[in-house]
């Protein structure tokens, strides 16, 4: 085993000699340094290899001088040390490569020297077991960092460096005082010896002991930048060279973190609690302040501080928890640390590369987007990146130890972080024409009825405050290439390779960890989407023909579906068919795409597979993993839309919030298994758990109050994506409800409703109503459809929450039929949009003559969707009202009926305005939609007709799927289905309808057979002058103005206002909070001392 002294010794020797090497040639020091770093890395790797071979023989203590500790300073190499050093040294190596390879690299002379001393210092911090030696290495690290900050020869760098120096000096002073007192009280400086002592007994004789330890702790804690005394650190992240920031954040901070971990074994429990609190506060508030941040590097600084905060929290926790838990949670800290090291470094590097390139070009540079996505995703703790698994483990441990509050803190902070990180991402992806906000058309002001509509618009806009801020990120980023437009072409691709290596490390670590975590429950299959995604993106990066890709993907999905569906039954099978078959059919339309659309096919494929995985996951982890994968992929897919940046961000945030809520709910339910298993014996209903899980589901379903993300997401995403999301993915929420409800809702049924389900029912009913009303007033087709989906899913929620046989059948029935109708509608509309290139309904009209098949599709689907007999949509309505009245939910039934009447209105408007009326000049030469759109439509129509004729084809299996949970409530006699209230014979209705239809038609044909004359388009009995503004003259514009006039005032979007309020509040909270960062170094010094005093006072209170 290689002695760690070589790292320190040889490293320092080479550092000392570097000035001499420089005389040999300018590049020589670089090369030597890089080789040294590589050697460091290799040594660390060799340790890891060796240790993993014989874990029990480690950690090994290495002595200096030849005396055993405590007589001489000793170094320790154990698994944790080795792992951390591998990560740190690899990051340092990559940093070195980046610094020497980047464009116009000035990495030479003292910068290299300081770089090397920094790395050596960090290695020493990790290795040493002596408190004072730790101080020395801490000083090496600090001084190197102080100096490196100034390597960016720019006034802000000096300012930041000086503040950093002040803070660091105060921290050192605390540490030094602590160390000398600890020596006084214990007579040694060797950590292990102190740990072995009976500190409680010592405390009795030396009352100052705890304060000595506290001062040591404080010294290191301050170096770890706790909120709020961390303004100096953030300044440094902002002002220094990004590559240096990467080093400070990734390498420097990691070393100090490890040192902190090392001394944490001295902490008494009270102190550990204070550390936990400090870490938690840092984590949440840094992210909160970060929300408001517009300068990218400063934002990354807040993120760094937050990440370190969570690790500090874990370090505190592992002192409090039981030993097993402590080890578990510590492993998650290591993972988080590694995750932070590589992702944060990667982001800082990317931000540096951006300095040299025109920002807007990123959208067209797939590799950059992928890299960004990887780093941001891993920082935000999204699957499959390491942080996801780490946070999962943390949360599991915390849940077992009943530390719910901390879980909430962690998730809240993660949510904030995802918020601002992805705000940045969306900014980068933004198209020139993208306003960065959710796009909604302006209603002209002089139409008085529109006031409430503009209210909707303005408040939704205010809600997108995040997205607005995103706009300013762009402005604040320096765009050097303004003067030099060719800069992007001159970039050095090798640098990107360095960044790519970092991302590969993150991905690989994530996948390996995932395999490790999922192996426990035999759920390795769940990683398939990740593999598919990676393979697919490589496929795209290589510019292989996308049609082959599509065919491969579809074949893969088919195979996967076949394998999965074989093993499913009951409700699972229903959802399986819904998810897999439903999406597969929709993928056909992708064939129309002419050129390569980067990432589209891999992401869709992975999304579908993730949906499928929801069905086969058996553990909380598996389920949550697949759920998060689905969420992330959906939001990425939405982000592909040209104007979807605001919408995608909103979707991501709401979905993550929902997912986290669900996660807490799942955690609250201790012996949880996701299998739908009949009736379970549950004595106390975990109402809170039900509530939280339901929130998760309702976010996905876009239920009223949580629907804010929905219209923008469905409307701004590409058409195929909207279709997939609204018809398939939204059902995942329903699936969640079904799959979890049987565990705790059903057992309670005999005693009546549990309040949550009643609440869900009302929410469902009002979602249906609100969705319909919102849809009514949209001029934009896709918004109409989006709100329509929201309303329809509301029905399903309502039916589900009935918790009766009929209710569940209804819910499933509606889910299946809605998939059909909405997919058809979206596809047909997609064809229209594809041809007309506009989404405003008032810019269309008369398309029936150009797109007859699309017209028929739309006609059929709106008849079905609005529940008009004889089509199968009526079945859903019939089941719903029957179920509601049976259950006694009369008022809900009333609301639902009103909603369905309103739904009829907007659906009619949809078909009328697009297809009827006068054909526009610009559409005169239009063709029918491409065949790729039409095939799924025809298939869908056939299925609709089939189900309409023979409703038992659909209701029968659903009934059987639900039967295990409830007793049967409907019976079949021939084609007639009987409930306790009424009956319905779909077959007969169909025949009667056909009969009464043919009769007048025949009459008409007979009467008019010769005389009917087709007239030209404008041949109508109408003469009047045309007003000025074209859209207002269109018959379809503001179609149901009466409604708005009648009810507009009730339609003020309360939910939107509420969320606007929440966002504004959070935002302004962050804004107020960051006022503490006055920029004055002295104030920062004061904050540090005050912080220390407060912590010490808290500690004293604890004694």
């Amino acid at each position, binding site marked *: 085993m290689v002695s760690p002294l070589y790292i320190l010794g040889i490293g320092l020797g080479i550092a000392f000699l570097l000035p001499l090497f420089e005389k040999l040639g300018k590049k020589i020091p670089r090369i030597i340094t890089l080789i040294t770093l590589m050697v460091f890395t290799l040594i660390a790797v060799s340790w890891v290899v060796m240790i993993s071979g014989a874990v029990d023989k480690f950690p090994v203590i290495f002595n200096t001088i030849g005396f055993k500790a405590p007589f001489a300073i000793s170094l320790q190499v154990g698994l944790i040390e080795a792992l951390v050093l591998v990560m740190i040294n690899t990051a340092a190596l990559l940093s070195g490569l980046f610094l020497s390879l980047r464009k116009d690299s000035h990495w030479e002379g003292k910068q290299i020297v300081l770089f090397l001393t920094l790395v050596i210092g960090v290695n020493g911090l990790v290795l040493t077991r002596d408190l004072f030696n730790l101080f020395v290495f801490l000083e090496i690290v600090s001084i190197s960092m102080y100096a490196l900050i100034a390597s960016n020869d720019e006034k802000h760098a000096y300012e930041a460096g000086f503040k950093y120096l002040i803070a660091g000096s105060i921290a050192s002073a605390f540490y030094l005082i602590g160390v000398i007192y600890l020596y006084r009280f214990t007579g040694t400086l060797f950590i292990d010896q102190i740990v072995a002592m009976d500190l409680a007994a010592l405390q009795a004789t030396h009352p100052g002991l705890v304060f000595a330890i506290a001062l040591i702790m404080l010294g290191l804690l301050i170096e770890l930048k706790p909120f709020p005394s961390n303004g100096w650190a953030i300044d440094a992240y902002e002002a220094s060279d990004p590559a240096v920031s990467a080093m400070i954040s990734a390498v420097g901070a990691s070393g100090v973190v490890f040192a902190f971990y090392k001394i944490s074994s001295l902490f008494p429990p009270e102190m550990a609690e204070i550390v936990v609190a400090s870490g938690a506060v840092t984590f949440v508030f840094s992210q909160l302040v970060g929300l408001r941040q517009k300068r990218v590097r400063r934002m990354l600084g807040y993120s760094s501080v937050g990440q370190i905060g969570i690790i500090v929290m874990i370090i505190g926790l592992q002192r409090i928890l039981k030993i097993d838990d402590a080890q578990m949670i510590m492993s998650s800290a290591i993972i988080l640390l590694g995750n932070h090291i590589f992702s944060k470094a990667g982001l800082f590097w990317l931000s540096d590369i951006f300095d040299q390139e025109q920002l807007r070009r990123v959208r067209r540079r797939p590799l950059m987007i992928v890299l960004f996505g990887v780093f941001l995703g891993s920082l935000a703790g999204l699957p499959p990146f390491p942080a996801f698994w780490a946070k999962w483990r943390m949360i599991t441990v915390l849940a077992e130890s009943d530390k719910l509050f901390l879980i909430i803190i962690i998730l809240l902070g993660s949510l904030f972080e995802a918020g601002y990180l992805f705000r940045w991402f969306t900014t980068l992806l933004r198209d020139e024409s993208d306003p960065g906000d959710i796009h909604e058309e302006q209603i002209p002001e002089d139409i008085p009825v529109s006031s409430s509509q503009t209210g909707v618009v303005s408040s939704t806009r205010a809600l997108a405050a995040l997205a607005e801020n995103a706009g300013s990120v762009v402005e604040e980023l320096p765009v050097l290439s303004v003067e030099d437009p060719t800069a992007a072409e001159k970039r050095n691709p090798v640098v990107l390779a360095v960044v790519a290596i970092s991302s590969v490390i993150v991905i690989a670590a994530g996948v390996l960890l995932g395999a490790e975590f999922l192996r426990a429950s035999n759920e390795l299959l769940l990683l398939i989407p990740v593999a598919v995604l990676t393979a697919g993106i490589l496929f795209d990066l290589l510019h292989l023909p996308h049609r082959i890709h599509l065919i491969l993907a579809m074949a893969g999905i088919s195979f996967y579906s076949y394998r999965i569906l074989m093993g499913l039954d009951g409700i699972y099978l229903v959802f399986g068919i819904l998810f897999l078959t439903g999406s597969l059919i929709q993928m056909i339309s992708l064939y129309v795409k002419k050129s390569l659309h980067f990432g589209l096919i891999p992401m869709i494929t992975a999304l579908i597979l993730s949906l499928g995985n929801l069905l086969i996951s058996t553990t909380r982890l598996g389920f949550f993993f697949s759920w998060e994968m689905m969420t992330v992929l959906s939001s990425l897919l939405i982000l592909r839309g040209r104007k979807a940046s605001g919408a995608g961000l909103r979707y991501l945030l709401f979905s993550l919030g929902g997912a986290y809520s669900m996660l807490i709910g799942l955690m609250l339910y201790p012996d949880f298994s996701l299998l739908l298993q009949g009736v379970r014996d549950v004595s106390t209903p975990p109402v809170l758990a039900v509530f939280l899980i339901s929130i998760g589901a309702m976010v996905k379903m876009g239920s009223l109050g949580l629907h804010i993300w929905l219209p923008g997401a469905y409307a701004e995403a590409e058409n195929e994506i909207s279709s997939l999301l609204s018809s398939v993915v939204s059902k995942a929420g329903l699936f969640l409800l079904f799959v979890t409800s049987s565990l705790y809702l059903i057992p309670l049924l005999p005693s009546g409703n549990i309040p949550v389900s009643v609440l869900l029912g009302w929410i469902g009913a009002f979602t249906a109503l609100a969705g319909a009303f919102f849809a009514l007033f949209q001029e934009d087709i896709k918004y109409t459809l989006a709100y329509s989906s929201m309303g329809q899913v509301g029905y399903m929620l309502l039916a589900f929450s009935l918790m009766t046989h009929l209710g569940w059948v209804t819910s499933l029935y509606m889910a299946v039929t809605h998939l059909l109708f909405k997919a058809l509608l979206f596809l047909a509309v997609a064809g229209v949009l594809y041809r007309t290139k506009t989404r405003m309904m008032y810019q269309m009209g008369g398309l029936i003559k150009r797109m007859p098949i699309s017209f028929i599709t739309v006609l059929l689907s709106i008849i079905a969707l609005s529940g008009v007999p004889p089509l199968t949509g009526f079945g859903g309505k019939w089941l719903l009202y029957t179920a509601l009245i049976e259950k006694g939910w009369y*008022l809900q039934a009333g609301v639902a009926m009103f909603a369905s009447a309103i739904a*009829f*209105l907007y659906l009619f408007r949809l078909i009328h305005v697009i297809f009827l009326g006068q054909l526009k000049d610009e559409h005169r030469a239009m063709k029918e939609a491409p065949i790729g759109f039409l095939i799924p439509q025809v298939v869908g129509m056939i299925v609709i007709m089939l189900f309409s004729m023979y409703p038992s084809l659909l209701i029968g299996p659903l009934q059987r799927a639900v039967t295990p949970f409830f007793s049967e409530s409907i019976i079949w006699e021939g084609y007639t289905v009987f409930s306790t209230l009424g009956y319905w014979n779909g077959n007969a209705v169909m025949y009667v309808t056909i009969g*009464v239809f043919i009769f*007048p038609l025949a009459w008409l044909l007979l009467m008019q057979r010769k005389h009917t004359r087709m007239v030209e388009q404008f041949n109508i009995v109408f003469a*009047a002058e045309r007003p000025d503004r074209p859209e207002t003259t269109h018959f379809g514009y503001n179609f149901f103005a009466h*409604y708005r006039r009648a009810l507009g005032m009730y339609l003020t979007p309360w939910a939107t206002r509420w969320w606007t309020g929440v966002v504004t509040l959070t935002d302004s909270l962050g804004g107020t909070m960051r006022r503490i960062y006055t920029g004055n170094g002295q104030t920062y010094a004061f904050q540090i001392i005050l912080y220390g005093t407060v912590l010490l006072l808290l500690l004293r209170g604890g004694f």
Partner: protein
Amino acid sequence: MMKDIAIKAGYTLISLFVITNYGLLLGGTMARVRAKVQGRIGQPVWQPYIDIIKNNVLRTGISHGVMFYLGPVFRLAGGLGTYLFIPAVYGSLVFANFAFSGDLLLVMYFIFFGQLGMALGAGQSGHPYSPIGVARGLAQMSAFEVPFALSVIAIAAQYQTLSVTEFVALQQGGILNWIVFTNPLATIAAMISFLGMSMGNPFSIVIAPQEIPIGPPTEMQSSFLGMLQTNRAIFNGAKLVLFMNLYFGGATSVLSMVVKTFLIYLYTVIVGASFPRFRADQSIRFFLGIPTLIGIAAVVVQMI
């Protein structure tokens, strides 16, 4: 089997013939009654027949497209279907129609069928005034559906059925068994919404276009218009029969059906003669106001 179908077809034709003629005559009579109230002489009772025949024998028709052509067909099919799903006379085989196909919910939703077809046909004409009428009509329809739906829910809750035949059966045995007496709140709500449904004053804004040519049928002429007029008779009849069945004990004979529906219709005419016309938004607000509250009250009474 074939025989059964043939017999059923025959019964259906009889039933349709009766309701068509009854509807046309009722329309003519009421027009006269209205005229008397307003101090005019009015048109002959058989004027609707004249209109229909005149329209149907027009030599030429103008069509704006397939949907325009099919619009009236949809409309009439809607009317016919609505009627056929309601049992017109309780206990009568001839007038049982196709009530076995579905319950009250089917009827309520089938009403939309004709509306939709009509609106689509009018839409394709491309005349800007058609959609104005359509929009008004649909908007008003969705509003008056609310009290009606609540009323239906209330009585369904009360009688625990949704079958129209069942309702009639349950109301047999004396006038006090009629729902109008057992559940007056629901009846009031339903009868107010019936005013809207029959589109007489004050809710005649949809029909209003026929006085000045604005509205769904603006472009309709010849056989198309004739078909619409036929439908108005049948559809009116169907609605009257439905309300009679639901709230007024149904009918055990054609005669009682005629009397009851006549009285119900008379009520709308009288109300219509004494009120001015509402604007569309006013009528929406009206229906979603007091009638809805009454409907909710009816439902709440059932819940207690």
